């Protein structure tokens, strides 16, 4: 089979082809590696690519599959992982100069899970430095470009992950989502992704940005791939005491999900000022598809949404400033060559090792946690969080799913957002809500704007409702073709 044909398959199709002997895992891996070779020079989605190492791993997995020793649904399929997830013996940079040479002596729990499942890693994906950004421009290793238009950003912080899937440089990928870091790049790059219920996936080995919000999740070409990818990494982990028991998603049930009786709520607050009219139109059209498929669709008010951004940035920056205080140039990571005293080691290493956006958020976190301000900011944010939780609890009595836009616009041009951080923060307005209270959420492609840039539909469900969410998304993808378009085929009709 030709590389091009392999690359056009979904992850589940590749897995089936490997199982049936039509192709081999090394073949699929070679195909992905040559796609990376061809495109990543421009896109910069990868920080590190495992060439021979990936092939060797694929051959090993292939043998196990042939022996019948591996029958996981995605065994042998190449994937890539965001470079904030620790891989033993392999540098894990978090997109920062601070960790440029950090080689973790341990792997994340999800990495162990993936090894067990026979997944083949082809490399580590670029991201905003310490996930702080919504554009993947703040990486020490240079900005990632959007495969649909390389003058635009792919979104962030899992921009490398979304771009790699969109550009066929990986069959599926894992990112992490703190305030939209999986969903928003999925929206900008026209791919699907899930931010699971908080606690479904172990965070052990995920380099923390904001611990109460961070969650690892899959990005794929369609929702079924995402579900299969998510199933590989869920479960309670003794190394992460915030993990919960989770039931794997039933893929065949998801493929047969019916829209009849599905109750969908659409918060009108998500279409307030600031949303791009083309995005609004695409999202409303997608919602309409659901009602045509038998779902009941109701508009409702979610006024608490107004407080999402302030609540999110207080919590995220407070946790970040604490989580990032461990980077001090003593145990690992960057140490300034000019440091003479202990104080120099701290101040110079941190000042030289962190980029400006990271410094800005650390400063903001220090501000809200500093003496005397705790009540006014952090405690207030936790109270707001309680009210957000209450609002969702009430909404989910009436609705099975909440639908809306993933982002207020399509991908902006490179450089546009960096000049105005507040504007960049505001672009997270829809995605931060599920993180604040730990709800599952997904983004799937639902249209294109006049520049042919993808638009994303965000789904938010009650705790542990991934089955319903994936079912509804699969239903949508069985009825539409937005997810089938990819950059090379631009211009063709969906």
């Amino acid at each position, binding site marked *: 089979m030709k590389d091009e044909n392999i690359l056009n398959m979904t992850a589940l199709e590749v897995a089936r082809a490997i199982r049936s002997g039509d192709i081999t895992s090394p073949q699929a891996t070679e195909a992905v590696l040559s796609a990376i070779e061809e495109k990543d020079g421009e896109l910069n989605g990868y920080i590190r690519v495992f060439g021979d190492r990936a092939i060797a791993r694929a051959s090993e997995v292939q043998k196990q599959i042939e022996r019948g020793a591996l029958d996981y649904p995605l065994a042998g399929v190449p994937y890539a992982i965001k470079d904030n997830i620790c891989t033993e013996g392999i540098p894990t940079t978090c997109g920062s100069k601070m960790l440029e040479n950090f080689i973790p002596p341990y792997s994340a729990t999800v990495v162990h899970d993936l090894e067990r499942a026979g997944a083949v890693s082809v490399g580590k994906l670029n991201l905003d430095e310490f996930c702080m950004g919504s554009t993947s421009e703040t990486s020490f290793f240079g900005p990632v470009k959007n495969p649909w238009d390389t003058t635009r950003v792919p979104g962030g912080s899992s921009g490398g992950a979304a771009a790699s899937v969109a550009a066929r440089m990986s069959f599926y990928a894992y990112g992490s989502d703190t305030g939209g870091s999986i969903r928003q790049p999925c929206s900008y790059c026209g791919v699907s992704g899930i931010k699971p219920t908080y606690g479904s996936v172990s965070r052990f080995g995920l380099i923390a940005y904001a611990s*109460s919000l961070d969650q690892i999740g899959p990005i794929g070409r369609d929702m079924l791939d995402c579900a299969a990818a998510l199933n590989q990494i869920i479960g309670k982990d003794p190394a992460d005491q*915030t993990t919960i028991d989770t039931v794997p998603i039933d893929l065949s049930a998801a493929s047969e999900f019916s829209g009849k009786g599905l109750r969908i709520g659409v918060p009108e607050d998500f279409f307030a000022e600031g949303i791009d009219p083309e995005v609004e139109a695409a999202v409303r059209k997608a919602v309409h598809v659901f009602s045509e498929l038998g779902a009941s669709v109701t508009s409702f008010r979610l006024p608490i949404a107004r407080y999402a951004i302030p609540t999110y940035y207080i919590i995220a920056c407070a946790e970040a400033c604490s989580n990032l205080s461990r980077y001090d140039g003593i145990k690992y990571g960057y140490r300034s060559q000019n440091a003479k005293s202990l104080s120099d080691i701290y101040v110079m290493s941190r*000042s030289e090792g*962190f980029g400006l956006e990271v*410094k800005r958020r650390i*400063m903001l976190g220090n501000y809200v946690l500093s003496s*005397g301000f705790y009540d006014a900011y952090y405690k207030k944010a936790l109270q*707001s969080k*309680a009210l957000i939780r209450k609002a969702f609890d009430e909404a989910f009595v009436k609705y099975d799913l909440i639908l809306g836009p993933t982002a207020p616009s399509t991908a902006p041009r490179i450089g546009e957002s960096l000049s105005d951080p507040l504007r960049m923060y505001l672009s997270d307005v829809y995605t931060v809500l599920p993180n604040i209270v730990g709800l599952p959420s997904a983004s799937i492609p639902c249209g294109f704007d006049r520049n042919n840039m993808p638009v994303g539909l965000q789904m938010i469900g009650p705790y542990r409702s991934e089955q319903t969410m994936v079912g509804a998304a699969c239903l949508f993808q069985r009825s539409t073709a937005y997810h089938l378009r990819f950059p090379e085929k631009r211009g063709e009709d969906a």
Partner: protein
Amino acid sequence: MIRMTDIHEAPPEPASIGAEQIEYLEQLARIRLSGEEKERTARDLSKILDYIEMLGELDTEGVDPLSHPVTTEPVFREDKAVNDDRRDAMLRNAPEHKDGCFKVPKTVE
């Protein structure tokens, strides 16, 4: 020592970040900004904090702060010393080490 009085003090001033506050934040964060960064950060933080102030209008009277929305059964680790001596692996990333220890310039309390 922990003292509650250290924490609950006056409410914050209206958010406008000046040079003095930036300096204090630099000290708290152990980060020194360049002259240009300082200005930019002061401007950006003021803008962001102005926006965040909006939270002040939210009525949270009597609302219990929520720290962990997804709670589970309490989980514990059993008290067993299971880790091997992995000193060398732990020191491998250290910029400087000596005699099995992380090395820093001489520091006296």
